[in-house]
């Protein structure tokens, strides 16, 4: 096999292997649970209607941003578990800023987005500074910050909330219509609109790719992630990188809740979707920290979740099967990539060894 063929083949082999394994394992779970395996798969694989496609894309947009935020940390060996807290604090801040309408129309939107990015970055930055200055593991500090975020938002929400009589949901003041981000009725008005924020998410993905792979900063970040010692020896200021990476990760995390806030909910309340940050961790793993991989992972997760209602209502299967499938997919992806990576490494080492088998005449360096 030539190199030109091997690389793309290996790249396709890993996800293919993972999906087949996940399919088999999930079927096994279904059989053990005594659920109708065939029906479950045919329901899951039923092509979604236009309306569901819109839902899937919208949910994936949110997941995408979350996974991107996690991936920035991952690339530097930082485990930002705090995306969940970061986006909730940031979304709340944005909801207040946009809801109070301090600036009119689109300016209010821009201000809200800025507020979200800054608040998310600051919240993650706390963990970054603690890690850089005091060596506190970011895993622990971000988990703790998640708890603090929950309480802080709950407390602040009660301060600023407006409550409709008879409602049990409290929320921030509703964002004025002219500050909302319009949706894209790509599949017809009846079927709902795709979040306008999908464009922002795509730009973030492109920016992430460019930053990491094309810039000096990205190189330093990846180098630090691979080997902090080598990065230090090469002149990287690792402490500054830690703080910067956490700020970036938190900034993107700040955007996570905005598609929902500015595109459909228009208020941050007690029923605002939570847990997106944790889904982001799984999706970042699934997408191998690659912007396109993450997009596919986000779509897959969103698609599976979209199918959980028909599964329950039409096939009478517990929606937990969806969560189990998601978990199995993450595991199989990680394992199959590791298997394929090792195989690829062996292939490469062999190739290098072959290259060493050049005729004796080419071997220089022995005679001086």
């Amino acid at each position, binding site marked *: 096999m030539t*190199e030109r063929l091997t690389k793309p083949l290996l790249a396709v082999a890993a996800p293919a292997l993972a999906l087949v394994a996940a399919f088999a394992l999930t079927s096994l779970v279904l059989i053990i649970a005594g659920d109708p395996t065939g029906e479950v798969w045919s329901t899951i694989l039923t092509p979604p209607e236009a309306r569901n496609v819109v839902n899937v894309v919208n949910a994936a947009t949110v997941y995408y941003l979350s996974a991107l935020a996690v991936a920035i940390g991952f690339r530097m060996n930082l485990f930002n578990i705090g995306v969940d807290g970061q986006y909730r604090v940031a979304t709340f801040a944005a909801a207040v800023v946009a809801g109070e309408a301090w600036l009119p129309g689109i300016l209010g939107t821009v201000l809200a987005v800025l507020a979200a990015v800054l608040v998310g970055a600051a919240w993650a930055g706390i963990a970054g500074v603690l890690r850089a200055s005091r060596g506190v593991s970011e895993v622990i500090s971000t988990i703790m910050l998640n708890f603090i975020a929950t309480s802080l938002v709950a407390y602040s929400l009660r301060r600023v909330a407006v409550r409709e009589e008879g409602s049990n949901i409290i929320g921030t003041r509703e964002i004025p219509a002219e500050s909302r981000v319009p949706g894209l009725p790509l599949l017809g008005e009846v079927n709902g609109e795709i979040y306008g924020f999908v464009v922002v998410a795509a730009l973030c993905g492109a920016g992430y790719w460019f930053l990491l792979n094309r810039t000096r900063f990205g190189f330093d970040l990846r180098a630090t992630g*691979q080997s902090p010692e080598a990065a230090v020896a090469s*002149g990287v200021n690792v402490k500054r990188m830690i703080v910067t990476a956490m700020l970036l990760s938190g900034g993107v995390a700040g955007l996570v809740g905005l598609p929902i806030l500015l595109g459909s909910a228009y208020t941050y309340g007690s029923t605002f979707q939570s847990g997106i940050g944790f889904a982001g961790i799984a999706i970042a793993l699934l997408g191998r920290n690659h912007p396109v991989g993450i997009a596919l992972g986000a779509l897959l997760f969103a698609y599976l979740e979209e199918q959980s209602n028909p599964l329950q209502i039409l096939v009478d299967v517990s929606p937990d099967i969806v969560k189990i499938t998601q978990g199995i997919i993450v595991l199989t992806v990680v394992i199959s990539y590791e298997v394929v990576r090792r195989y690829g490494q062996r292939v490469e080492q*062999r190739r290098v060894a072959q290259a060493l088998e050049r005729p004796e005449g080419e071997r220089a*360096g022995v005679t001086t």
Partner: protein
Amino acid sequence: MAQAQVAPPGQLAVRLSGIGKQFPGVVANDDVNLEVRRGAIHAIVGENGAGKSTLMKILYGVQKPDSGTIEIDGSRVDLSSPADAISAGVGMVFQHFMLADNLTVLENVVLGAESRHGIGDAARKEVLRICESYGLHVEPDQLVERLGVGERQRVEILKVLYRGAQIVILDEPTAVLVPQEVEELFTNLRELKEEGLAVLFISHKLDEVLSVADEVTVMRRGSTVATVDPADVTARQLAELMVGSELPSPTTEASTVTDEVLLAVSGVSLPTADGRPLLEDISLQIRCGEVLGIAGVEGNGQAELVEAIMGMRPGVTGSVRLGERDLTALSTRARRECGISYIPEDRHRHGLLLDSPLWENRVLGHQTRPPSARGMLIDKTASRRDTERIIEQYDVRTPGPDVLARALSGGNQQKLIVGREMSGKPQVLIAAHPTRGVDVGAQAAIWRHIKDARREGLAVLLISADLDELIGLSDRINVILRGRLVSEFDPSQVTPQQLGSAMTGAGPDAETGR
């Protein structure tokens, strides 16, 4: 588990006949024949890639041979895993230690072999017995992180013996040791041999091989080419057997030293909390075209000195100047940009991104300078082109610049690092153990490059545990002891023995240089 009864010395412990191992496209071993007796130290020498490691992996059950037979104590065995090898009495001490830093010596030894003597007093007694009978001096309750390299190696040997090994393989055990530690190791090995064990010793360092081995087998291109009695050969002859051609040596050429001081370190100290400074008032100057060698027993401040000059170590006092520029307040990156290059001691940890392609490794340390960077962006095209130049000029054996660094052999990795650090017209090169663990061919090439650069006016700070290398390359040699520069020697007048005693702080010899 069955502990083989120690057979009388002289009896064959291992016989490998006709061993062949082929990886697709590469013959790693071909018709390897080897006989190792009990009560003897048997050395295996050969260039990197000559097939020594593959052979040892076969003997340790990591890989299965395609052909040939393995006999241990006269009976044919089939080793399909290290566990098989261990129960057949084969133990291996790897070049890279596999110890848990935060556990004690005893815990490290027992870890994974709990079934032998449990983890309690019986285990402790057994460890102490082994230490006693083989003269291995280690404190069982000491934390491994507190141990020096030599002691760690003894722990590795202890681990192997604890598991009942009668045949001990050591993979380049002296690569990480200083002369005194090497002597200690050899004493230990001789003890093992006295006790009737068979010791297989892999090394590049021919002098050592000649001084310790009872038999030497030379490998070249996957095959065993000769087994000789060390009494009958010189190091030179042995080396010629290894590479099959004439040999280089690190002889200095005419001095190229000029008057222009390039690197000036003055009053550098590194205090620590416990009051024992790691570096104390170090001052040195290196002139244009000069190689200053630093000799010292490992752990006497060499690593700290390098990190202080590179600006990687917080808490350093004193000043570092490059020509007219004061570097003291500058970051590592700024110092590199000023023209200081750095070949780190541990290439895997400090020198390379193992899972990145070679061209990215070319960028490492040069992130801010052309050809690696263009403005804020990484210039991939130019980096790749320049990597190809390095591959060509420094004879890095690789199919191309997109190969992962991990896939290269140690010598080729090091040649890439040397080529990288010589790029961009550096003024000063800090070279820490530049030829550690590389084969003879690569070593000669690296020496040649350092000499060439010196001729062109490069100032080099050379830190090495290889005293021949220091003497051969340096214009001056300073000895570092407990964080201080204690004496200076003229390499043309000094012997390794004199250097050795100065390094350990023993005797009046220390001052002979001046």
